[in-house]
């Protein structure tokens, strides 16, 4: 039986395709989308800004509903008002009807309005956003909005100055209805780089960026030095390697959030054993210092992170050490080199690429830090430990501000890209060695 067969090349592309598509859909596309979102004043919790709109739009469902009442209320006012007030009402009607006619002169919009009118009469909900919103010219939207706001202001001032209480009430009612209607005309919320300008002047953004930077440098620095020391010490034959390896792997393997909860308990000002011992040993001024002061909070986070990832660093460096041939050390012994010379002339140069790769992954991880801080301190006290990722998360999901939050995400992304770029330049093609032929 002759089956259809792919040749090697076709098979190769076919095998890569699923992964490539997935990476594009779940990583590259969302990053582009985040960038796009950051150019809008886009808030999930504000109905006038919950859509990204390059053009002005009208929320037809509410507009049509309001227009019906405006018509009726203006007729009432015309029946009751006199003199200047009557003239104001008539002018208002003329202006509003003018704009409404301009809107309905577009056949497509008119058809939508009629359909919605019918659905509203029957109390049907309008869930189709294609029907609910309609694009309009930006200038028209701004003019109509402005006109409605002006008339509303006029009516409210008439209401204030008139003596007839009932009439005043009617004017006030219509005035606020018009103000409400002006909110149905949604101007484009595309604001370009305005969000970015805002954050470049935002104290909290710079503070969180500094916190992240400080946390990354200090914790990765400690992890590297301690990790290297441990790797050098245990790079020898001894009994019980399994126990050491397991005890080193467990902190790495448990979820960071679980580790953060554990450390939260150990650091606690009243019940925390670590806080208690540190206070006894005069390492910290008081047991409550760790989680209630800004320096203490930062110390607590870095200490927990060093505990969790130093073992991992040691493991990577140990594997690197084991690839250095013993003969090099033997030869240098013959030449009379001392231990320090051996370390700086043999160990470090040969370990360089292992160190750089370990540093690359650790630096990126540390820069993205979220769970540890979010669970352990929540960014407090007074935002003193807030990392840029935590700030972005709070803006995105607690304040539901997807426009501004996306700016912070883009900032994290750019920082990470810069860090990777520097490392990849340092490491060079070694990074791909052993993966392609």
């Amino acid at each position, binding site marked *: 039986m002759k089956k259809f067969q*792919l040749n090697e090349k076709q098979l190769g592309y076919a095998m*890569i395709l699923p992964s490539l598509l997935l990476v594009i859909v779940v990583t590259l596309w969302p990053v582009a989308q985040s960038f796009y979102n950051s150019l809008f004043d886009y808030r999930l919790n504000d109905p006038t800004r919950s859509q990204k709109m390059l053009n002005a739009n009208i929320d037809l469902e509410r507009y049509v509903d309001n227009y019906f009442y405006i018509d009726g209320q203006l007729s009432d006012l015309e029946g009751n008002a006199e003199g200047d007030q009557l003239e104001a009402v008539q002018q208002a009607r003329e202006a509003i009807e003018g704009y409404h006619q301009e809107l309905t002169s577009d056949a497509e919009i008119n058809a939508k309005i009629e359909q919605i009118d019918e659905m509203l009469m029957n109390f049907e909900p309008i869930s189709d956003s294609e029907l609910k919103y309609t694009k309009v010219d930006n200038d028209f939207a701004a003019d109509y909005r402005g006109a409605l706001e002006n008339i509303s202001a006029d009516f409210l001032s008439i209401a204030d100055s008139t003596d007839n209480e009932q009439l005043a009430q009617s004017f006030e009612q219509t005035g606020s209805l018009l103000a409400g209607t002006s909110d149905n005309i949604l101007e484009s919320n595309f604001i370009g780089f305005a969000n970015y300008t805002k954050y470049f002047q935002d104290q909290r953004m710079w503070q969180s960026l500094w916190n992240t930077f400080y946390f990354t440098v200090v914790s990765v620095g400690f992890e590297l030095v301690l990790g290297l020391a441990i790797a050098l010490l245990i790079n020898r034959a001894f009994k019980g390697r399994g126990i050491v390896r397991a005890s080193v792997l467990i902190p790495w393997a448990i979820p960071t959030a679980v580790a953060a909860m554990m450390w939260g308990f150990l650091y606690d000002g009243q019940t925390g054993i670590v806080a208690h011992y540190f206070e006894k040993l005069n390492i910290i001024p008081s047991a409550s210092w760790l989680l209630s002061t800004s320096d203490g909070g930062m110390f607590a986070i870095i200490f927990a992170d060093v505990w969790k990832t130093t073992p991992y660093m040691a*493991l990577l460096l140990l594997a690197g050490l084991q690839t250095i041939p013993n003969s090099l050390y033997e030869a240098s012994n013959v030449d009379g080199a001392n231990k320090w010379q051996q370390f700086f002339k043999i160990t470090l140069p040969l370990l360089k*690429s292992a160190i750089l790769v370990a540093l690359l992954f650790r630096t990126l991880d540390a820069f993205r830090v979220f769970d540890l801080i979010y669970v352990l301190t929540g960014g407090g006290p007074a935002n003193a430990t807030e990392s840029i990722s935590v700030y972005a998360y709070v803006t995105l999901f607690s304040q539901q501000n997807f426009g501004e939050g996306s700016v912070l995400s883009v900032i994290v992304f750019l920082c990470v890209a810069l860090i990777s770029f520097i490392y990849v330049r340092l490491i060079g093609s070694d990074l791909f060695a052993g993966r392609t032929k």
Partner: protein
Amino acid sequence: MRKRAGIGFYLFLAIFVFLVMFPFIWVFLTSVKPVGEIFTSFRWFTTSPTLSSYEAALTNRPLLRYMLNSFVVSSLTTILAVGCAAFAAYAVTRLPIKGKGLFLGVVLAASMFPQIAIISPIFNLVTELGLRNSYIGLVIPYITISLPLSIWVLATFFNKIPFELEESAKLDGASPFQTFRKIIFPLATPGIFTTAILVFIAAWNEYLFALTINSDDLWRTVPVGISMYQSEFSIPWGDISAATVIVTIPIVVLVLLFQKRIVSGLTSGSVKE
């Protein structure tokens, strides 16, 4: 440089292991204390050990449900990611296609992307698909973490398999896909298994997506569920330490069983051989 180990060395090791394990030891000792004692003394060993904290941890919050959720999500992620990655890694290491460097570069870049930079569009996507508070809703974003990791680790493993095997298979008339399925795949099984463990652990530990997408208590995963034990007004340390012990046990078992594999998987990415 490779010295024999002396007494001083073993003493150092013992202190090192003790310090690293101390948080676990203390949390375990706390979890068997009566609740009152946690808040009143720093004594290491309680005189009246009790399991009441464990009972509270399991009844106050659906901890077992969290574990089930984590298990299902991590397993699905692992199967999907390792499945796709096995194909991609094979193609990159052993088939004559163009743009390998570019593909690996994209994969490496994807693994470096900060999750916070993609979370809002992913959140919108999952919401639009109606997949919030479901297993698939988490598996989708977890691909961002697990797929690049799998491809990266698997590529190293595939590269270690001797190339002569394929050449002889080709001479015997096997098609490229047959070679992959019958020759390379069985030989790569240990590497695939190792990758699967790493991916499983990474998915099990993920916090940010799980926190945002599955906000309903019944669909929370372990890391998020644990962090919800604290309320604004009180922190039930007894419950928390018991819950910590319960969720750490599976990981300890996994590590003890597969420690050599995990180490080889972790270091394969960073060390040239």
